[in-house]
């Protein structure tokens, strides 16, 4: 059966990370296999064909395109030919007026600058293409190019510390980590953010306030990492509501990574202490989250070449036992930290009368509660 509970997000001091950097359409790869790249290095680029604009010349001249000879006549009125570069406002076709007088002529000028792509002899439509748009792909993480996918991109590998968040907004950025709170319980407020946070990834504790997000943007910070956020604050900050859990393309000045969820939730001890250790180091940050198939979580990556690689230390399905540290991730104990007391194998009914596999969890105040196994997350400390 599928594992009955949510495996914890990865928070590790050293792991091997591979990133596929792929262009959206075929292009040129700019680096070779084995090359060392930095976060802002270009690894591939391509030209997105210019945006086409249509202009129905036949309609302008009132020609009937179902008649071949009218199409032929239309061609004679064109002052430009396929492949010609043109400027916005340039005269591109002209039909002499009454008695061939220029003053009564019907004139067509180009609405955009670009290149004449094609004049359709089926519809009398002229397609003008704007100049191509370059697309450049950065490495995003510093590391080594371990594979080149010809014409598409590269795979970069690095040894790094990795913090996966639960939810984020904003895309790929790179900056220095700056922890501005003293404890994982502290709320990150605007007062803690000043001009020294410029280009930095600001780390808070249990919550980031709306004012703090605005202030971070104002001082030119790169990103914000915190335990939680109040749902309505996020909506106000973005200016719209996120309906579906697919993010990463928001037009905002900072990238935000939440490590725990919505509401004020203490950041996990391990995450906080690790971010403290990484204070002052350069990190790649990405808020992109996609919870549907594929599960993409937001991340913070800090290259860590000196450290030995600890292979996959995620706790697996068999790893949960008596004493395992967990976080409860659904009401009525949402956000509480606990240790596993026992794991009865049989299905049991909880208050909602749902029959589920449960565990008994000892909360920090000593009370023991029954919780569906699906509603806990493992914490690695």
């Amino acid at each position, binding site marked *: 059966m599928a594992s009955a509970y949510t495996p914890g997000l990865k928070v590790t001091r050293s792991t091997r990370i591979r990133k596929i950097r792929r262009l959206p359409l075929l292009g040129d790869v700019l680096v070779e296999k084995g090359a060392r790249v930095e976060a802002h290095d270009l690894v591939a680029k391509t030209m997105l064909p210019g945006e086409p604009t249509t202009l129905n010349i036949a309609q302008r001249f009132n020609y009937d395109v179902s008649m071949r000879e009218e199409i032929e006549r239309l061609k004679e009125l064109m002052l430009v030919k396929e492949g010609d570069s043109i400027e916005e406002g340039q005269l591109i076709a002209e039909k002499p007026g009454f008695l061939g007088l220029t003053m009564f002529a019907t004139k067509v000028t180009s609405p955009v600058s670009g290149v004449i792509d094609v004049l359709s002899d089926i519809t009398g439509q002229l397609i003008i293409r704007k100049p191509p748009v370059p697309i450049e792909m950065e490495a995003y993480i510093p590391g080594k190019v371990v594979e080149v996918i010809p014409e598409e991109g590269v795979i970069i590998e690095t040894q790094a510390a990795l913090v996966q968040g639960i939810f984020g907004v904003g895309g790929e950025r790179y900056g220095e980590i700056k922890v501005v709170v003293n404890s994982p319980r502290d709320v990150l407020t605007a007062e803690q953010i000043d001009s020294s946070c410029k280009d930095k990834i600001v780390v808070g504790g249990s919550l980031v306030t709306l004012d703090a997000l605005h202030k971070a943007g104002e001082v030119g910070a790169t990103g914000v990492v915190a335990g939680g956020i109040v749902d309505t604050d996020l909506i106000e900050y973005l200016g719209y509501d996120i309906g579906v859990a697919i993010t990463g393309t928001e037009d905002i000045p900072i990238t935000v990574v939440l490590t725990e969820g919505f509401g004020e939730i203490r950041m996990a001890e391990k995450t906080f202490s690790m971010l403290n250790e990484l204070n002052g180091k350069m990190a790649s940050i990405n808020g992109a989250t996609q919870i549907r198939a594929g599960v993409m979580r937001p991340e913070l990556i800090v290259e860590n070449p000196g450290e030995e690689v600890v292979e996959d230390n995620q706790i697996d399905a068999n790893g949960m036992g008596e004493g395992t540290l967990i976080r409860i991730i659904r009401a009525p104990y949402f956000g509480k930290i606990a240790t596993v007391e026992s794991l009865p194998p049989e299905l049991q009914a909880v208050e909602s*009368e749902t029959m589920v596999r449960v565990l008994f969890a000892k909360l920090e105040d000593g009370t023991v509660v029954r919780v569906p196994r699906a509603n806990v997350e493992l914490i690695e400390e």
Partner: protein
Amino acid sequence: MAKEESQLSIDPKKVKTILATDCGSTTTKAILIEELDGEYRLSKRGEAPTTVEAPFEDVTMGVRNAITEIMELKNQDMEDASKHVNYLDEGGVITTSRYPDREETRGVDLYVSTSSAGGGLQMMVSGVVKSMTAESAERAALGAGAIVMDVIAQNDGREDYVKIQRIRELRPDMILLSGGIDGGTTVHVAELAEMIAAAAPKPRLGIGYRLPIIFAGNKDARPLVERILGEQTDLRIVDNLRPVLERENLGPARDEIHNLFMEHVMAQAPGYNKLMDWADAPIMPTPGAVGKLIEETAREQDITIVGVDIGGATTDVFSVFADTFNRTVSANLGMSYSICNVLNETGVENILRWVPLQIEIFELRNRIRNKMIRPTTIPQSLQDLVIEQAIAREALRLAFEHHKTLAVGLKGVQQVRDVAETFSQSGSGATLVDLMELDMIIGSGGVLSHAPRRVQSVMMMLDAFQPEGVTKLTVDSIFMMPQLGVLSEVHPKAATQVFDRDCLIRLGTAVSPVQATNSKVKPGDPCVTVNMVRDDGTTDSVEVPFGSIAKMELKVGHTATLEISPRRGFDVGAGSGHKVEVEAEGGLEGIVVDARGRNPMYLPTDQTERVEKLMEWIEAMETYPIETLKAYLE
């Protein structure tokens, strides 16, 4: 339905064991069907996480895991180890087509599969007139099981450059281009084709591949479309989906969509080439298979059906009215990934109107968001369950509203109408969904199929769909409609038998009177009397006032004659105050007499009154453990 039987390498009559899988976006579900005493029955089921994404990137791993679970369960039942079964070898699922002389314990006779993994089938459709060919094209794509990313039409109100930009942004799996009745406009079709050619959209999967485009428009425009798109794209030409204004012909376009789904989309997805090899029938998109099953059921039993599948990300609605099948997908209404969108679209108030408990709005909002980012959690508290089911009501209601707007008669058609039709405004462009004519609702998806009490599914469906008159209510027990849908292509008998006996759970029959428009009826006024004579001769009778709901016992497998007498001003199908006599089927919740009214359903706006009423209904129907609920209220 029987068309494919001859394509099987095995005589359908000799088929004793069948494996069927559905590779969903998160879970791969397998079922084992066996013939016992001349009857096909569900024998075992298994599931495993889908393995389309990294690090596995091979869908067949999940399929193997799900089938392995079935094997383990099957072998657990068998003490004699020599009878232990094995359905897999290195070449995949062991089937009779690969091993005609296989031993009985080794492999199965038939293997089929559906898939919606990797985001399902995503399409863009295009037509000349938005309300005509473009709408027909949209129906064809939806019916084939696709998610329609956008509908581009000549007259959709957007500037050409906006449309071109949109086409460039989208990365569909394929495009369906239609336009013009046969003999009609060719120029407008050519313009659309040129627009697509200029935008040069790229397929979602397979970076270097040519985008598949199906042209199903005016046959006179074929050479033009061929000239414009032939070289640049993988162009397929099929019969016009709207050959004349009065008729749709969606079959050829749908079939070609399925072909391309196999050839392109599936072939690009990791591991699917293997899976296609294993299967004895083409792999179908999951919703396409569900639709097929619903369509067949409606046809065979000569009934009207509304089916719904509410998932984590999307909600599909299927309907068959007036012999016309329709499917819609609300791509952003669901119970986990898209749950926040339900909140956005309907608003907090609409969700809370179904909840008799007090909860702070900010608390509710944070809870819903946390469910979105941790989709696999389960409601532990009763409060959480009540909230989740309230959200489900709204998701279902919105998806059904959406469905009604697309499941319509053909627009732009001049119809000869009689006087009655003119008054009921049926005909051109009116919705085909007629709740009074609706015979059966089939619900599926976790929140409906796995509700702790079955009556909760009854109430969710009644509140969301508000059926009128007499309607049978069912749920899909473990969501095996996709597997049965694809099976029905090659072995209709097995599919029908398992659907009837193991898949459908009969919840009961609802009797719902509708009050007259502008009715002044008040809660407590007399509304309806139902007299029941069961097939075993026992009788029962209930009188339900307006604004209340009641149930009468009628067990699964039993039938009863219902004499339904609505008061004047109420209609149960025969007109105001007219008595109706029907043969009703029993179910886990028996006969539900829903006298809460329709258009609108009675729901007090005053908070205290509303909570009282909700509690009254909950108590009458035993929807939730009432004592626990009362404790919350105190």
